[in-house]
């Protein structure tokens, strides 16, 4: 295919280069590596630089970028494009993410693979529009109505913005679901060295296609094959409760029960395959204090853990890379022998409360809002108070 040849040539030239770029820009390059064919978006601080770089670079790699009239149209466009077989994404921040919630539910219910980047900023509403926050963690989980599960990943460096985009697109295709890259303004606007991967190291997951004889909207397996528009079969895509052939049936309780439990279970039952964390255990193995963090807050948190160890305190550290589904096995294991767990977040304790549901140790939320990330000192003080 000509498009694929363009992309390969583009990425072959990029491979091995080292750029001093924003997390947002790294995210855009990550999308191109991940095989994004179609981007639709609407500019918003602090996510605009993603769209800017995509607009410049994606067409060179054979893809299409459209600026839509708003965020509702943006997500509608990427859902529609995904049904033609394209790998699609949009990028926004809190206010735009709020506007997208209805169609994120539509993507969940229609099992549409697509990627939504949310570079979190301080809210609610216009809040501190240009300042970073991590206040959309629970919105990513529960922002759209109705029972569902979701996949969300949180990068902590510009390099990881690139690397995790590959995971986002692959997870979207493997599980036929929208996947959220939950960045934050701090990481979106951090500028640091990013190494462009060699093309030979990149793998794309295959989106499973329905066989012609199958019910085109999914058989009994957890993740049914998809039937793209234009491939010869009649495709009916609806956000209403539907049968395996895609046709509406909103009156039969069992139809809804079977459909929704399967959509929920395809993520919940594969949690261990999806979840990624990064563990830094204290070398003496006897820590009674632990710190769990993610995204921007994980950087001062990890710095503070290092300082605390230099001061003679044993402290364990766990970074959540996957935010949803929640890393409950890893978190329970991490906390098993701890007395106190500190959870620094740039919100009022959203993951801290989630952790409390699963662990027996004391959980202390080290929350910070106001648009300024934690300092190493602030988290170090919290650790020393816990000693």
């Amino acid at each position, binding site marked *: 295919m000509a498009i694929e040849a363009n992309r390969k040539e583009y990425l072959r030239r990029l491979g091995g280069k080292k750029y001093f770029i924003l997390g947002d820009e790294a995210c855009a390059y990550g999308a191109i590596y991940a095989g994004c064919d179609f981007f639709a978006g609407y500019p918003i601080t602090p996510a605009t630089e993603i769209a800017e770089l995509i607009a410049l670079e994606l067409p060179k790699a054979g893809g299409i970028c459209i600026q839509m009239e708003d965020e509702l149209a943006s997500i509608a466009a990427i859902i529609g494009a995904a049904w033609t077989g394209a790998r699609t994404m949009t990028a926004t921040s809190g206010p735009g993410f709020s506007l997208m919630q209805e169609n994120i539910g539509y993507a969940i219910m229609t099992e549409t693979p697509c990627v939504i980047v949310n570079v979190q900023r301080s809210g609610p509403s216009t809040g501190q529009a240009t300042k970073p926050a991590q206040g959309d963690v629970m919105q990513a989980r529960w922002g759209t109505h109705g029972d569902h599960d979701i996949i969300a990943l949180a990068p902590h460096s510009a390099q990881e913005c690139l690397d995790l985009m590959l995971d986002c697109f692959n997870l979207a295709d493997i599980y036929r679901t929208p996947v959220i890259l939950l960045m934050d303004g701090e990481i979106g606007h*951090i*500028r*640091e060295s990013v190494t462009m991967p060699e093309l030979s190291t990149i793998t794309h997951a295959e989106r499973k296609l329905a066989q012609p004889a199958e019910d085109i909207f999914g058989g009994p397996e957890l993740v049914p094959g998809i039937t793209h528009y234009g491939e010869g079969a009649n495709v009916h895509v609806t956000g209403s409760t539907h049968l395996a052939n895609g046709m509406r049936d909103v009156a039969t309780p069992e139809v809804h029960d079977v459909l929704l439990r399967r959509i929920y279970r395809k993520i919940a039952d594969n949690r261990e395959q999806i979840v990624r964390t990064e563990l830094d255990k204290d070398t003496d193995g006897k820590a009674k204090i632990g710190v769990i963090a993610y995204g921007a807050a994980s950087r001062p948190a990890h710095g503070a853990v290092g300082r605390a160890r230099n001061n003679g305190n044993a402290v364990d550290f766990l970074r959540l890379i996957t935010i949803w589904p929640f890393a409950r096995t890893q978190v329970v294991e991490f906390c098993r022998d701890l007395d106190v767990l500190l959870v620094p977040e740039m919100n009022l304790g959203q993951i801290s409360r989630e952790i409390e549901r699963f662990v027996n140790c004391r959980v202390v939320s080290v929350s910070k809002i106001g648009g300024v990330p934690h300092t190493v000192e602030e988290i170090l003080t919290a650790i020393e108070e816990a000693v």
Partner: protein
Amino acid sequence: MRTEIRLAAFGGQGIILSGVIMGEGAINDGKNAVQTQSYGPESRGGAAKSEIIIADENIDYPMVVEADCLVALSQPGYDKYASEVKPGATVIIDSDLVETEKHPTAGSFYQLPFTKLADELGNRIVANIVMLGSVCAITGIVDKESLLEAVKANVPAKFLDLNVRAFTRGYEIGEQALA
């Protein structure tokens, strides 16, 4: 070795670009660099801050804790960050935009007319590049050639010559201030 540099100004004075160039210059030197920024919703005016961490090792925490070098191009920028410097730090201000006699704890304190010099070169917009030249001469944090290379890579081709002259002029007055 970790060096923390903070640039403070109004939005529109170009310090975010200055920070990007400084970071890229450090990378040209073979070091690690992280640049972060903070600004208001206004495209001009409002407080702007640009921070650069340069280190030989990996940079865990990306922001300034206590600056080794503070550069202020606005009074509010100076007032807000003057106290958040290491003892013995280098503090540099635009002498026409910041009013202060001296800095209480700085190891060295420089008042230089970046904006006026940019006006003399024909365009106030290059005050940020004049400043970079001076910071380079005074602190030596980034190699002169590495930084100039980064300046050239980050300004529009149409204004390349003006920016090179701005950098050179800034470097000269930085050297004079050191002498």
